[in-house]
């Protein structure tokens, strides 16, 4: 296949991915709405301090709605495969790592977020996140196709480096994890105490914490490898360029979340609000900094 066909294939696969994620979202939503009756949740505190949630359901779940949830997971996997293939074909078309501009970066970040969700739901009961992760994935891809799209092509010399593979890949992986953490945190804040279709607060808080604990060292590594790259490319490893400033702010904000969570009186809601502030900083760094501030990092090609 020629580079052009590969590039076109990639573009078409992205559209297919959006449709698949939307279809999956409908399935998850049906399951949330009809298969999970508002449950009576009681949180029991075990003797070692861990909380155990005990759920009692009033009525039997509706069989077809449960099936809708299972189909949704299947659709998510197919969408994920399309997303992955789109990224791979883009990379083959341009003969470099397929995250050289903002369009490619957002596509990869969504791939990472969906990957985190899909692999998490293999091991933990987190299917309730599906609907929300799918919405974010579909909207994010739509946004990147409509607003950020850049024709497949080579990158400027500064980006033509193996550091892309190290630095940007780490940033993408961390962003994917933080996205799932952000979804869980929002659900936590939306869900009220008492019976709800949404899962127990303790479960949401655990999901958020788990992904952020994995994401934080990866983000730290991304920032450090960025400094190493800057040292190679620009002759200084840290110059308070807007992108660097916001990467740092994001890092501090997630560190503050970890500290807050370890501080008595800040657990739960307050800590998760801090994590959402941190997620906001992450998104601002991704979108806002490229659009508003410029600086050496603005290769993003936003028109």
């Amino acid at each position: 296949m020629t580079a052009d066909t590969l590039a076109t294939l990639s573009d078409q696969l992205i559209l297919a991915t959006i449709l698949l994620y939307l279809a999956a979202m409908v399935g998850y939503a049906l399951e949330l709405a009809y298969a999970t009756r508002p449950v009576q949740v009681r949180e029991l505190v075990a003797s070692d301090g861990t909380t155990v949630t005990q759920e009692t359901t009033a009525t039997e779940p509706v069989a077809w709605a449960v099936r809708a949830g299972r189909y949704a997971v299947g659709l998510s996997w197919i969408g994920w495969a399309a997303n992955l293939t789109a990224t791979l074909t883009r990379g083959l078309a341009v003969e470099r790592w397929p995250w050289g501009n903002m369009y490619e970066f957002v596509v990869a970040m969504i791939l990472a977020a969906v990957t985190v969700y899909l692999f998490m739901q293999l091991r933990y009961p987190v299917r309730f996140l599906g609907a929300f992760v799918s919405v974010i994935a579909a909207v994010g891809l739509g946004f990147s196709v409509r607003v950020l799209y850049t024709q497949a092509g080579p990158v400027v010399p500064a980006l033509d480096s193996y550091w892309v593979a190290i630095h940007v890949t780490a940033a993408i992986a961390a962003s994917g994890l933080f996205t799932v953490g952000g979804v869980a945190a929002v659900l936590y804040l939306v869900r009220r105490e008492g019976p709800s279709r949404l899962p127990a607060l303790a479960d949401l808080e655990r999901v958020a914490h788990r992904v952020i604990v994995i994401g934080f060292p990866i983000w730290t590594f991304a920032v450090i490898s960025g400094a190493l790259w800057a040292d190679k490319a620009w002759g200084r490893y840290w110059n308070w360029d807007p992108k660097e400033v916001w990467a740092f702010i994001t890092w501090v904000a997630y560190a503050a979340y970890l500290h807050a969570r370890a501080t008595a009186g800040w657990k739960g809601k307050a800590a998760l609000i801090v994590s959402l502030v941190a997620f906001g900083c992450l998104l601002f760094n991704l979108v806002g900094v490229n659009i508003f501030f410029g600086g050496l990092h603005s290769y993003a090609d936003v028109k």
Partner: protein
Amino acid sequence: MTVTDQQDQKAAPKPVGLGVVGWLRWGWRTLTSMRTALILLFLFALASVPGSVFPQRAVDPGQVARYFADDRVKAEWLDRFWLFDVFRSPWFAAIYLLLFLSLIGCVLPRTLAHLKEIRRRPPAAPRNLLRLPHHAEFAADLDVAGAAAALRKRRFRVDTGPDWVAAEKGHLRETGNLVFHVSLLVLLLAVGAGSLYGYKGNVLVVEGDGFANTVAAYDRYSPGASVNAESLEPFSFRLTDFQATYIGPGHEKVGQPLTYSAKLSVLDAPGAPERTVDLRVNEPLDVNGTLTYLIGHGYAPVFRVTDGKGQVAYEGPVPCLTSNTSTYESECVIKVPDARPQQLAFLGRFLPSTLPVGEEWISVFPGAANPTVQIWPFSGDLGLDSGVPQSVYDLGAHKNLKPLGTMTEQPRPLAVGQSLDLPDGAGKIEFTGVKEWISLQTTYDPGRMPALLASIAAVIGLVLSLTVRRRRVWVRMKDGQVTVGGLSRTEGSNFTDEFAEIVASLNPRSGVPDDR
């Protein structure tokens, strides 16, 4: 992280009439409490926000100058609060120093406590193991040595009594946490040392020209406070060739650069053997830790100017400033102080790939496919002896220059080899060729390596402090009856599965342990 490690989070009690010492102690306790550290950390982040909103002198002085030109009063107010020098401002330094102190005050006592903790034996078994959150009981012929060996195999540190074994694991969590926080301190120190003992210099070199690493050779030189001019690494080089390639027509991003490559012949020291270096973006020239980076390039058309008396008054390349980076249309200023009877000066517009559009000429591509230059001549007094400093890229300051002949918006451009005869027999200017220039930045930063090592240590420490769990296990055996108790000291971690495995490894018959 551990439930019992939280005494430092209690707010220090307020001193009641304790005098200076009391206040100092209260101040120190407050400063080094985790809450203060958190607030300082937030302030640190918040304080760097204006550094991304306003242009910074150290990063983009031109942009700062534009602020002053647009609204002088506002810019002066911003400047009063150091908003163009956020990262060198006293208030930023204050936060930085307080955080630094807070970290020291927090890390030192914790390190001492941890060193003691590491050397302590695992605490003796509580009387009733079945009261612990994790416990199991089974009948087996287990002896103390056997139980201790099984736990040691799982890398617990073990202490034994006549009929009990105490085991503990996971000190690495606190070790990692301390390594992380200490590394942050080292990182802050390394960054500080780098800016004190390092320097940065910028220079522009035209193809064919050379550069020797001395303070005088730089166009802009910014040393740290403790650098002296003799300590510069004595290397030199000549730029033999520069090549740039660009995306060709037919793509959305036509004209975007693809590769830059500058061929240098380098002498690492006077008298050293010459070596050839291919300088590229992301691949700096390294001479004993002093690094030289390729950071920009542009065109330097070559001119020969003959004055009114028939003498060649100027001959050579003139570096032009790139005014449009997607077409490399450039602006040139040529000053000819040696011209007689009157001094001459020229403004030029260099077009690397020229295309006529109606009565105008534009550049359509950054490569020099069809280079031309438009010339506007002036004559008069350049005022170079006036003592007022002048930019080589600007004619604006010369009040005593008069246009030669009629000035038009779009003079017919000269191709290579063509010349323009000046009116009134004032001479002529020939466009003889095209060279390119590169801009280089040289940096020496002795803090780079320590900063890198500290960052690596920080990541390792961080991973340990976030993943290692601290837990204790006790075993008692009496008359063939074994009781096992377990306690996780890391909040929120799941110890149930591991405890079950431990019990199974102790019980030769592997009865199903009843946990919780």
